[in-house]
C-alpha cells in the first residue's frame, strides 16, 4: 500500500521538455500523442518595476494519479483501475474504447491510441517503479524538478534521479503557500506542485 506520486519543483523546471522524449523512449507513446506535456503558464502582465516579466512558470502536466479518480469511476469494464500503490492504470485488454474516462478527466491527459484503439495515459512508468526504479521523466528531468515518492512518507522523502531526496536537495519551501495541486473537482489529484516567489495561476 502506498500513494505514489510526483512532486514537481516548478522553480526548477526550465521547459526543456526532456521529459517528453524520456517518456516516449520507454513507453512507446505514439508520435503526436503525449503522456506528459510542459505548458508555459504566463507570463501575465508584469507590475511596474518588473519589466520584462518574470512571473511565469513551466507546468509539467500528466495523469495526476488521483486518489478519487473519476476515470476509474466511469470506466464500465474496470479497465481503468487504481493499484494498491496508489497509481491509476489501464488494463488495455479490458478497454472497450468508450473514452468516458477521457471525458471525465479534468486535465485531458487521456487519449485514444488510434492504432490499438484503447485509451492510454501516463502509467508513472509502472514497469519501472514496480522494480524500485523511478519514472523515466524523473530520471531524465534536466532541472531535477520532478521527484517521485510515496505521499504517505511525506514530500521530503521524494526521490530524485541519483538517489537524492527532495528534503535534502531542493530549496526550502513554505508548505502552506508554495505547494499546489491542479484544479481539484473532487478527484483529489495526487501530484504536488511547488512554486516559490511566482504567482500560481488557476484554481486548486
Amino acid at each position, binding site marked *: 500500500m502506498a500513494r505514489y506520486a510526483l512532486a514537481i519543483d516548478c522553480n526548477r523546471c526550465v521547459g*526543456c521538455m526532456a521529459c517528453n522524449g524520456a517518456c*516516449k523512449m520507454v513507453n512507446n507513446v505514439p508520435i503526436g500523442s*503525449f503522456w506528459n506535456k510542459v505548458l508555459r503558464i504566463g*507570463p501575465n502582465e508584469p507590475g511596474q518595476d518588473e519589466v520584462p516579466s518574470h512571473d511565469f512558470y513551466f507546468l509539467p502536466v500528466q495523469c495526476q494519479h488521483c486518489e478519487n479518480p473519476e476515470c476509474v469511476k466511469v470506466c464500465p469494464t474496470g479497465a481503468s483501475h487504481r493499484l494498491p500503490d496508489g497509481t491509476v492504470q489501464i488494463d488495455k485488454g479490458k478497454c472497450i474504447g468508450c473514452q468516458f474516462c477521457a471525458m471525465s478527466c479534468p486535465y485531458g491527459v487521456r487519449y485514444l491510441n488510434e492504432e490499438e484503439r484503447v485509451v492510454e495515459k501516463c502509467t508513472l512508468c*509502472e514497469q519501472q517503479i514496480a522494480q524500485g526504479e523511478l519514472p523515466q521523466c524523473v530520471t*531524465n528531468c534536466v532541472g*531535477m524538478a520532478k521527484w517521485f515518492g510515496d505521499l504517505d512518507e511525506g514530500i521530503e522523502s521524494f526521490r530524485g534521479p541519483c538517489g537524492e531526496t527532495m528534503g535534502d536537495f531542493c530549496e526550502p519551501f513554505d508548505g502552506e503557500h508554495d505547494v499546489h495541486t491542479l484544479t481539484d473537482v473532487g478527484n483529489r489529484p495526487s501530484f504536488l506542485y511547488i512554486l516559490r516567489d511566482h504567482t500560481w495561476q488557476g484554481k486548486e
Partner: protein
Amino acid sequence: MGSLNLSRRSFLKTAAATAVAANLALNAESALAETSHTAADGAGEVKRIRSCCRGCGKMECGVWVTVANGRAVKIEGDETAPHTMGSCCNKSVSSLQACYHPDRLYHPMKRTNPKGEDPGWVRISWDEALDIIVAGVQQVKDKYGGQSLFTMGGTGRIWSMSPYNGYDSWFMTPNNVVAWQVCKGPRHFASALTSEFNHSWSATVERPPVFTIWASTPEGSNYDEAGRSVVDEAMQAQTFISVDPRTTNLGKEADIHLALKGGTDTPLALAMCHVIIENDLVDWKFVKRWTNACFLVVDDKEPSGPPIPHTYNATTMVKTKLLTQADLQEDGSPWKYMVWDKASNSLKWFNASADQAKANPDYDPATDPECGIWEGEKPYKRYDGSGFEEHWSKENFPGQWGEANVREGHMQAWSPELDDFESIDPATEGAFEVTFADGTKHTAIPVWQKFAERCAEYAPEKSESITGVPAEKVTEAALVYGTRVDPRWGNGGIMYQLAVEHHGNAIMNCRAIELLTAITGNTDGPGGQRGSTKIDVTYMGSFDSLPQSPLLDNPKFHPEIMEKQLGRDTHPLFAWWTNWANANTVWEAGVTGEPYPVKGCVCQSGDFLNMGNTTMAWDTLAQLDFMFDIDLWHHPTAEMADVLLPAQHWLEVPSPRQSQGSSGALGLCVPCVEPPADTRYDPQIVEDLYERAGLPWGWDEDNPYPTMEEILDHTVRKVGPSWKELVEEFQENGWWDVKKLRPDDWGTYYRFQTGFMKKSMAEDPTPSNVIPGFNTPTMKQEIWCTIMETYHGAEDALPDYRPHPDTIDKNPELWKEYPVHCLTGRRIPVYFHSEHRQLPWCREVWPVPRVEINPDDAADWGIEQGDWVWIESPHGKIRQTADLYYGIPRGVINAEHMWWYPEMPAPEHGWRLSAVNQLVNNDIDDPHCGASVVRGYPVKVYKATPENSPFGNPCPCSDDGVEIIHDASDPRLKDWAPVYEGRDQ
C-alpha cells in the same frame, strides 16, 4: 507482492503491444531486462554501454546507452558524471530517432540534375565518390587557384571539425568559413587578445557563490554546461544574476535581472567595473601584479614594440604606446615595460621576454634570470620537471584547497596564495613625466587610470540611457558581484555566451566582460574564468586535425596565400588571428566574383544559414563549380553539393571527449551500435580523401594512412596505454576528473602564478614552458590590449561602446520604416541550431519557429497568439508564429534562427519560408573579428493574412501549396519513425 506481479504482467502486455506498434522486434523479456538495468541478460542481448552524448555540439554529457539485440533502445544520463550530474536532455534521447531515421544518408551519392533543382541523387561507390571529389577539387584549383576553394564547418558532430583547418593542406586555401566566427570564436578571439585563448569559459561546476549568466540559455541548450548543473547552480548560488534583454527560462528565477538593450554589453560591463572601482572592490593584488594596469601609456609615443614578433598563428610586430625601457635608453630592452614605483618614486620594469622563445630558438626563458620578473623582485619558482604524477604546484606554492558549495563528486583545485610585491609598489594612477632616450619629455599615465576614466564614462547613471538598465540595478548587481562572499577569493566568473558576439561589437563586448571578471580577481580562480579543460587529449577530427603528417604543407606557412584570406583587408586583426575567412566577404565574393571568384567547397557539419545573409550564401553555393558534403542528412546545404558522403552517428563511433569548457571531465564516446551500410566515420573520410589525393595524412611518415585503432591509440597516448584499455576502464569506473589527472595543468588555480597557464595543452611541462603569466605580448592579462592597439590603434586598446551601423543611433532613418528591434537565435531546448527538425520527438514539441512578441505590442499590431506573422527587413522577409510573451520588452521581438523544413521538397527544403538570416545585412559585421550582425537589427512585423501570403495561406507552404508541419498532430511526423531494417545494405 501482489501489486508487483500484477504490474509486471500488465507491463509485459504493454511492452508487447507497444513493441508491435513501434515495429520493434524486442521481445518482452528483453524489454523487462532493459528496464531492470541489468548489464546483460540471458543470451547477453541487453547491454548498458557508458558513452558520451553528441545530441548537441556543446557539452560532454555522460550517458548510458541500453542496447538490446544490437539495437540502441534507451539513453539515460550517467549519474556518475559529476560535471553533468547525470543530465540527459530531449536531444539526447531523440538520438535514437536520428540513428535509425528513414531519411539518413546510407550511401555516397552524386547529383544528376543541375543545381537549383531536385538533385536527383543516385547511389555511387566510395571509389567513384572519392575520385569525383579529388578531380573536382583539383579542377577548381587549376582553374582559379586554391583560394577559390573554401571549407564550411559548423559546431555539429565533434569529430567533424576538419573544415577548421584539416582540408587546408590539400586545398591550400586561407578561406575557412566556420560557424565558430559567430559562436564562441569571438570569445576565444577576445580572450586570446586579453589573456589566454578560450579563457572565456568559466567553471560553473565549481559552484561560484554568485552565478552570472550573461546572454545565454544553457539550461535548455547545455551550452558549455549541462542543463542540470546550470539549473542547480542557479538554485544554489547565493545570488543568481541574469543579464539578458529578455527573461530566459531560467532567468525567471534570477535574483537580479539586468535586462539590457541587445548589444549594449560593453557599456553595462564598464558600468559595473565603475561601481567596482568606486567601491574599492578591486582585487589589487591580482590587478597590479598580473594585469598591465600599472604599465604606462604615453599618448604621444610613436607606437613601437619588441624587435621579435609576437606570434599567435602569424607573425605580428607589436606596436604599442606602452612605455618600454627601449623608449628611455639607447640600450633599453623593448621587452621591459615600465611602471611607476611609488616606493622608490622611480620607474621600474617588468620583463615580458618570454615570447622571444616563439621566434628565437636560441632563447630559453628557463635560463634567462630576468624573464617574467619585476625589477627588484625575486625570480619566479622554476619548474622542476616532476611530471603529472606529482602535484608540483601544491608542493611549491603555499595555499589551500578551494572551497565552495560543490555537489558530490566534484572537487575544487589547489588555490595558491597570490604573491605580494616585496619592494616595489607600482602606481595605478597619476601622471608621470618621463624623458625619452632622445631627450624629449612625455607624460606617462598608468593604464589603470585610463581604464577607470573609460569606466567612468559609462557610470551606471550615464550608461542607463544606452543600456536601458536602471542605474540602481546595475549598481546593485555590481556590488553583489564584487563584494566577496569569501574574502579569500572572488565570487566567480561570468558565464557569458554568444549573444554578445552578434551585435557587430563582439570583441569589445567580450573584452569588457572579461575585464569585469579580472579586476574582481576571478581569473583562473575558483568558479572563475578558467578556460578550456587542460589535458593533452584531443577529440577525433578536431580543430588541430591530429594526426596530420609533418610532411604536409599548410597555407599558414605561406604569407602570400594568407594575404588572400577573404575579409583580411577590412579586418586587420585577421592577420594575427588567421583562423577564419570572413563569412560575409565570402558570400559577397560568391555573388559578385570580387575580389576573386569562390568556386569550390567542402561542407562538413557546416551550414549556410548561420551567418551573413542567407540568400547571398545560397547564391554562393548555387554558382560553385564543385562542392561535396559529408553529412547524416539531406538538408538544404547538402542539396547544393555535387557529391554527398554519408557520415556516422555518435552512437556508432569512438572518440575521446574531454570537456571543451571548464567542466574538467574526460570521458569517451564509445560505439554502441553497428554503423549502417556505406557510412564512414568523419576522420576516416578525411584520411581517405587525403589518400586519394595522394597526400600523406598520419603523424608518422612511415605510416601515412594509419588505421582508426592506431589513430585512437595515438590520440589518447598521454592518458592510457591504448584506446581499448581506456574504454574498459571507462566502462568500469566512469568519467575521469582532470583535476586529478593533471593536477598542475588543471587541478590548480591561478596558474598564471605557477606557470601552467602559458604552457600549451599539448606540451609536456618543462622549465622552458612553465613560465608565469599569460600568452600576451606583455605576459599580463591586458586591460590595455596591445595586439588590438597594433592593428586598430590606441583608441581600441581599451573597451569602448561601438554600436553597429544599423543601430537606431547610427541610422535613425532606417528605423522609421523598420521600428522593431529584432533579436534572434535564442536556444531551443529540443534543437541544436538547424539540427533535429526531422526527429519526431523534437519536432512534435516544437513544430514551428516562434517569435516572442510583447502582448501589448501584439495588440497594437493586431496579432494574436498562434498567428503567423511576417518579419521584414530591407533584406528579406520571413514568417514565424507569434508567441505572446511578457518576458520581452516592448519594441523588441525575438525570432528563432536557422529554420528549414525537412518535409518540404529539395533542394531548398523550405529555408526561404522562415530562415531568419534572410533579414541580415551582409555588409556589416564586427570590425575586429568579422562576426556578422545576426541580432539586434531593425525589422517590421505584421500579421500574415490570406491576402498577403502565397496561396492565400498565412501558414508557410511549399511551391505547390502544401503546408509545412506545424502541429504535433501532423501525420507526416509518423513517417519519420525509426526504421531498423536495411541498415546492412
